[in-house]
């Protein structure tokens, strides 16, 4: 199980575009597509897979594996607390 | 559709829809309400239907407003109605008292849900029936009915308007979620077969001497003058004399309140409705109302099949309580069983009017009473011979 924690503040000194990793809690998703359509980097697309309730989850669009910039927009607009991103330490 | 918009014929209606259609058939042309599950479909149906038939549908800002608006409409001559459920019903209480005091006819539908408080909004209950009797402050009397089918949602809505108009009293239709939401055949009779009791109206030739709260007839009901007819009436929630003028006097108060109560109790036989089955040789009688009566009838039939001499009395009206009907059977029967979707409310009234043991089959609500629970109670009572109250 994943550890639960609060969001930690961004270090403002070092300006760089962070890379993000998308996480999902499949059983929470209701397939509203808001994350998909509003992602500024078009990282996501509708998957053909459904969860147990029959909703189509978001998945990473082809070629977008490393496109997430961790802007967290999907995190903040998902009405279901189903998707979020975490910064990838490279 | 007839010229007045009544959809005569056979329909497959939800209980709430049937209630709305009953209102239209009764000539109701004003609805002021505030949505609340599980009564909302009544408002929704009337919002669609009233514009077709020239009725006024207004969604008010709350239940106090709804109640006040229908009283205003009634004062202007309209048959007027609102529909709600427990929380809204509680909020209507103050103005139900005003309706009593002003003697303004109106119909209030309460499609009961699991209670108290917000409770179980989408699930059934029958626990507002004592509130129907005692919910506003002060002594008063009104009439309350309890339909057990969509057909009765139609029929009793019509009856409710008739009683309201005839006795100048608010009438409550105490439905429950099961009946409000179930869909069943409803037969809407031709308009000339829909009973209509008129409001008693004053004599226009005696405008100047008219006393709006003087009941000259033995039924204790004064004629009702509507706003705009030139009678220059005064209506108040204060204690008032026969002219309608406020009077701060204990004797006038006693006389007024007593009349308000007696105009219902003295006319009870014309208002009350009950239905009975298998009573000829019954030693045990099951009493139920609303959706629970459907379970009860099934249980009684099953018990009859097992040879138990059990009868079934359905309270179609709850208030005034059918005292006469109970007096008639009180001594012929060994035991009573009251089944209701609450923790024992009408059972308290039954207890006061019969001298035999009363067994309650209660459930606080949330699901229709299973027939088997009633059947079990019948078997127990039958086996015990002598019975005692749970």
């Amino acid at each position, binding site marked *: 199980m994943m550890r639960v924690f609060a969001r930690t503040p961004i270090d403002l000194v070092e300006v760089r575009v962070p890379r993000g990793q998308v996480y999902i809690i499949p059983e929470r998703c209701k397939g509203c597509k808001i994350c998909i359509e509003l992602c500024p980097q078009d990282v996501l697309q509708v998957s053909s897979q459904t969860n147990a309730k029959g909703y189509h989850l978001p998945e990473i669009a082809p070629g977008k594996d490393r496109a997430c910039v961790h802007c967290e927009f999907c995190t903040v607009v998902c009405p279901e607390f189903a998707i979020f991103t975490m910064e990838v330490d490279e | 559709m007839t010229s007045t918009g009544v959809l005569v014929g*056979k*329909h497959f209606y939800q209980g709430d829809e049937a209630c709305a259609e009953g209102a239209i058939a009764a000539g109701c042309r004003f609805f002021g309400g505030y949505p609340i599950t599980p009564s909302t479909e009544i408002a929704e149906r009337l919002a669609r239907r009233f514009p077709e038939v020239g009725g006024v549908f207004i969604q008010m800002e709350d239940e106090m407003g709804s109640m006040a608006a229908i009283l205003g409409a009634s004062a202007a001559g309209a048959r007027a109605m609102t529909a709600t459920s427990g929380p809204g019903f509680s909020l209507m209480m103050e103005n139900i008292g005003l309706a009593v005091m002003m003697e303004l006819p109106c119909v209030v539908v309460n499609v009961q849900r699991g209670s108290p408080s917000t409770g179980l909004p989408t699930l059934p209950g029958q626990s507002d029936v004592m509130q129907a009797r005692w919910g506003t402050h002060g002594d008063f009397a009104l009439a309350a009915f309890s339909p057990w089918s969509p057909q009765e949602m139609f029929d009793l809505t019509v009856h409710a308007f008739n009683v309201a108009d005839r006795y100048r009293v608010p009438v409550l239709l105490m439905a429950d979620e099961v009946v409000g939401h*179930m869909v069943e055949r409803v037969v809407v009779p031709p308009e000339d077969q829909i009973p209509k009791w008129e409001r008693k109206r004053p004599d226009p030739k005696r405008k100047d001497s008219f006393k709006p709260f003087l009941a000259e007839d033995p039924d204790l009901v004064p004629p009702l003058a509507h706003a705009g007819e030139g009678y220059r009436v005064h209506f108040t929630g204060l204690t008032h004399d026969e002219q309608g003028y406020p009077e701060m006097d204990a004797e006038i108060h006693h006389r007024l309140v007593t009349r308000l109560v007696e105009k219902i109790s003295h006319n009870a036989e014309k208002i009350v409705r009950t239905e009975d089955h298998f009573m000829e040789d019954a030693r045990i009688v099951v009493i139920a109302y609303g959706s629970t009566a459907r379970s009860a009838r099934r249980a009684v039939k099953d018990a009859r099949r097992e040879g138990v001499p059990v009868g079934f009395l359905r309270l179609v009206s709850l208030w005034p309580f059918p005292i006469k009907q109970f007096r008639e059977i009180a001594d012929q029967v060994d035991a009573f069983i009251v089944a209701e979707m609450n923790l024992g409310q009408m059972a308290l009234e039954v207890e006061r009017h019969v001298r035999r043991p009363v067994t309650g089959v209660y459930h606080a609500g949330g699901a229709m009473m299973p027939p088997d629970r009633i059947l079990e109670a019948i078997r127990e009572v039958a086996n015990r011979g002598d019975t005692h109250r749970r």
Partner: protein
Amino acid sequence: MRKEIRLAGFGGQGIGLAGLILGKAFSLYDDLEAVMTQAYGPEARGGASSTNLVVADRPIDYPFVQEADILVTLSQEAYTRFRPEAKPDALVIIDEDLVQPSSQDTCLGIPATKLAEDLGRRIVANVVMLGFFTATAGVIKREAVEKAIESSVRSSVVELNMKAFNTGFEYAHQTEGDL
């Protein structure tokens, strides 16, 4: 006679309308008694949806389905949830493309959604299913259901729905050998 029928599927598949049509067919256009009930929950929408009918030849006291005699399912979730609540020997009808029944279960299948799509409107899968139900369940006359459809849908789509009904009805007869 008392028969308990449950139609179940996914929100948006028109389960409620199908129940209403069937209920009308029984109670207005045939000589039976019918009661329809639906489950109401706090969730506004989504998830499994069901419509329940009790049909009998005498007044119906208890209006709820306790153990369905006939179960019609248009989604896997509905099947999984409601199959155990139906009689073990219930007549189970499924949209065979959407539902994978358990291995012990013998069901009647129809690709109702596909057939509806073939008619150009996925949304009439419910009525296709009604046609199939009418043909196979043997509890209601064809004409009664047809009349009920006519009186329940907007006039502009009566024809489409009749076609859908017919498609389902005919599908049953085409595959009769298999039943």
